């Protein structure tokens, strides 16, 4: 009997998205957590912004720059976390063996995790953006096309980091789980979320400009302070993201091959 082997199956991607959707739907705590932290962050930075606006002409002029930064940071951080947590769910439930012996391909698995990161982010961020309008009069949606460019670039980076972290966990087991929670915080100072790149020492600026989100946060400040949309920054970010994403996929495949060599795919503990 010959079996047609489909190299990429949207049905299998759909199966995995459905699996995570069932999980999310079954747990009220998981749903609440998606909204809780972004809301707390936004409120804290929003009130700080309100306070600073009364103290400094810069903050008074650049209304929403801190709230905007924290919300875009959450897109980056939650985008990666949404990807990684969905992957970790398979490790926690000891289900990875079942998936690895099914016809599910790595590309389909990754595609499903990407879709889930968008769904999780939407559940968390849409209510928070509405809260920001209500509390501080800051409308992230008013950024329009710029928001789409910011969002796309930040999600791209979040997925690249998520893919790399998933590879590490696949290869090293749950002992590497901590990277899923912490690795993105390295981006927080380096990508200049809350301050311009010019604040950094020269040698660190070179590192900052090698990271795609730096261009997004600089672009956000250009838009909110200078009222200019810097398309050039978005294109540079996209180009760097393409490189970073490709490297992450290569690393994931290498780590998966290593896991097969080391026989760790059946042992999903620490």
């Amino acid at each position, binding site marked *: *009997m010959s*079996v047609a*082997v489909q190299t990429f*199956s949207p*049905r*299998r991607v*759909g*199966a*995995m998205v*459905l*699996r995570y959707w*069932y*999980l999310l739907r*079954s*747990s009220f705590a998981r749903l609440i957590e998606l909204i809780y932290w972004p809301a707390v962050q936004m409120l804290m930075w929003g009130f700080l912004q309100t306070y600073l606006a009364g103290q400094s002409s810069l903050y008074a002029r650049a209304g929403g720059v801190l709230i905007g930064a924290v919300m875009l940071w959450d897109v980056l951080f939650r985008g990666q976390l949404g990807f990684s947590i969905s992957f970790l*769910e398979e490790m926690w*439930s*000891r*289900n990875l*063996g*079942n*998936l*690895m*012996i*099914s*016809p*599910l*391909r790595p590309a389909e698995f990754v595609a499903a995790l990407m879709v889930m990161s968008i769904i999780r982010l939407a559940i968390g961020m849409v209510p928070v953006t509405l809260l920001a309008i209500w509390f501080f009069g800051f409308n992230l949606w008013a950024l329009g096309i710029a928001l789409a460019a910011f969002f796309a670039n930040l999600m791209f980076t979040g997925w690249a980091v998520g893919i790399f972290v998933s590879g590490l966990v696949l290869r090293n087991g749950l002992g590497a789980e901590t990277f899923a929670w912490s690795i993105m915080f390295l981006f927080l100072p380096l990508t200049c979320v809350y301050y311009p790149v010019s604040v950094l020492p020269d040698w660190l600026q070179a590192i900052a400009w090698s990271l795609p989100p730096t261009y997004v946060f600089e672009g956000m400040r250009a838009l909110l302070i200078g009222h200019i949309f810097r398309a050039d920054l978005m294109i540079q970010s996209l180009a760097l993201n393409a490189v970073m994403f490709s490297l992450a996929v290569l690393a994931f495949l290498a780590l998966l*091959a290593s896991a*097969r*060599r*080391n*026989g760790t*795919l*059946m042992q999903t503990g620490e």
Partner: protein
Amino acid sequence: MRRAAQPAKCLFPKRISMDARAEPAVSTERLTKVYKTTAAVDGISFALPYGSITGLLGGNGAGKTTTIAMLMGLTTPTSGTARVLGADMPRERYRALQRMNFESPYVEMPMRLTVRQNLTVFGMLYGVAQLSARIDEIAAELELTDLLDRPTGKLSAGQKTRVSLAKALINAPDLLLLDEPTASLDPDTADWVRSRLERYRAERGVTMLIASHNMAEVERLCERVIFMKRGRIEDDDTPARLLQRYGRETLEEVFLDVARGREAAQ
């Protein structure tokens, strides 16, 4: 006490006889897996004809699980070859994975999902046609109908084993790999699982490879036994001939002879 298995309609339509095929369902040639300096599997060669049911026996660390992992494409061999359903593993694994499945109490199903949700997800992954009807059929066959909408994590060990078995049979596989399928089950439930496996094999002519420590199970289900020790095949024969050669009454005694290094009579 579990009710006796009811005669039911044939849920697993027979496929064309596979015995006539030139190539065995599974074959290994000098299959070896070395971790650092330890040979977990050391140059084993065997072939399983289509429709056969074989027990893979050996003590802890004998290499059974590593062998099964290589047959499933989960672990890359250090050397040698493994062919499964006509595909080289792991290189061509996607040609075979659609037609095989695996069940082990050590690989769990997502606990928060209901039984139906789990079977839906795996059915979609395997591309099962008329999935909803297939889930109802298999649930009836494995007496899971009343449990379909309960979270998998809320089930007893025996019920979870039946769910894992349902997942392993959802794609009506041509090759079924089972790793201690009745471990930690009470005798009644274990007997029930064995009877279902016997029935499935009789109806579909499926090829089965069963790793087990339960000798009574192997005697009942398997027409051939491969004994492994320290990564090598120590003996390979039918249960009857093994009993005869070792001069023993039970496979358990043969197992102890093999594990402790006692040679067969001839």
